[in-house]
């Protein structure tokens, strides 16, 4: 009788263990408020038709329990084809963005990550380090990891922090999947900018020197990159009640401006 009781308990435990292997605290980051990849939804479909999704583990309303993230690659039938390995460590950090009144914008913590499904099936993940109270200001370092289509890590890079500079903008170019970094130095009317373009593995393919200052911050717009790795930098200057638009195009290494056009004032 003792033996049969033991068998029953063991079987019950086995069944519970097999069926009950469930985690309750991984939140798929499916909502987004901005076009900025850091804050946007962490889901994307690649040219292979597969969905990439980042789970944030243990995100909380207090901003203190985030425990890392994982990348999943899912086919149109819902099958999980791959899980990224290694998982993204909690040391990457998360933010909990508050408004002026101290009320939360996002219901839960959100990892400091962004991702892009590359045309070749790889998935590139960006890490934003050193976020302060405002995730759009004060970032001085970033990292890049690239997973292949089976979820294995195939490339890693980290850049910064650099003295007296910060990242003004960091994002994936929508079309090419390249990473664009807009560096800023100085403040106010003395602010100057430089641009980097990184490929899907985190290699710097274009780097400009700092240019400016040309006055107010908003006179230099969002950097774009074309298929030849050429950075395109727009400027807008007020002329009375009108505006002049200037467009610079750098060469593919970023060492020189090769084209400058001026339009307006309109």
């Amino acid at each position, binding site marked *: 009788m003792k033996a*049969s009781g033991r*068998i*029953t308990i063991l*079987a019950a435990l*086995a*069944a*519970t263990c097999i*069926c009950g292997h469930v*985690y*309750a605290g991984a939140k798929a980051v499916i*909502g*987004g408020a901005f076009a900025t990849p850091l804050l946007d939804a962490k889901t994307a479909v690649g040219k292979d038709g597969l969905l990439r999704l980042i789970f944030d*583990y243990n995100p909380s*309303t207090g901003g203190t329990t985030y425990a890392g993230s*994982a990348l999943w690659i899912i086919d149109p039938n819902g099958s999980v*084809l791959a*899980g990224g*390995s290694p998982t993204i460590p909690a*040391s*990457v950090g998360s933010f909990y963005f508050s408004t002026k009144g101290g*009320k*939360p*914008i996002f*219901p839960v913590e959100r990892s400091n990550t962004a991702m892009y499904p590359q045309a070749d*099936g790889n998935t590139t993940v960006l*890490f934003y380090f050193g976020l302060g109270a405002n995730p759009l200001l004060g970032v*001085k370092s970033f990292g*890049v990891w690239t997973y*292949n289509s089976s*979820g*294995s*890590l*195939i*490339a*890693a*890079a980290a850049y*910064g*922090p*650099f*003295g007296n*500079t910060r990242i003004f903008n960091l994002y994936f170019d929508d079309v090419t999947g390249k990473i664009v970094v807009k*560096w800023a*130095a100085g403040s106010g*009317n003395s602010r100057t900018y*430089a641009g980097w373009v990184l490929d899907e*593995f*985190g*290699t*710097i*393919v274009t780097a400009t020197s*700092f*240019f*400016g*200052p040309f006055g107010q911050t908003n006179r230099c717009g969002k950097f774009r990159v074309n298929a030849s790795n050429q950075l395109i930098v727009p*400027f807008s*200057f007020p002329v009375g009640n009108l505006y002049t638009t200037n467009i*610079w195009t750098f060469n593919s*290494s970023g060492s*020189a*401006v090769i084209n400058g056009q001026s339009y307006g004032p309109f």
Partner: protein
Amino acid sequence: MGLSNLRPLLLLLAGAAFGSLITFGVLSQKPSVQANNSVSEVPPKTLKAPSPAKEESSDSNNTQALADNEESSDTEDPVNLPAQAQLQALQKQRVPIRPVPTPKMVLQANGLPVGVTPDAGVPNPEVYKRLPGLQPPLINRDGRDMGQEAIQMMESHREETPFPGGIPSASATPMPFPQSVEEANRQIQGNSSPSATP
């Protein structure tokens, strides 16, 4: 074969059925969608059950447009109750639990892991000579598990260093926008540090 010989087998089956019933009962208490989805083998062991009530209360206090945008996509939002009902209906459909595949490093014919191109991580000398001190990324060329290397790279404390290529003086005064490409390049070259200039 007598009934007594089948007794252990019957007890085993009874135990398994009992365990399944317990598990079913436990899972049906969980609000998470994950119960019916694939189960990751990788999450940390410290996962904590979310607190929907807490999230809802913070959501309801949220008045900004940004918040509205974010919350509207969250299933915790009371506005999404019909969607939640649909979700619960979906949960009732038995979706088999499948494990997340463990990544296997597959090599290409050229010996490189899938996804790695021969020129991956190979720096353009023209670019990197203007960025002294910067190293190209770590590339997996032999199919090894580079997880620890990558994590160490991110977690190690990194000292602040001068910006590669140099930055202009912080007190630089605004200048007129260059009227030609030549003028722009002269101005840009002036901002480069001598050490970074080829």
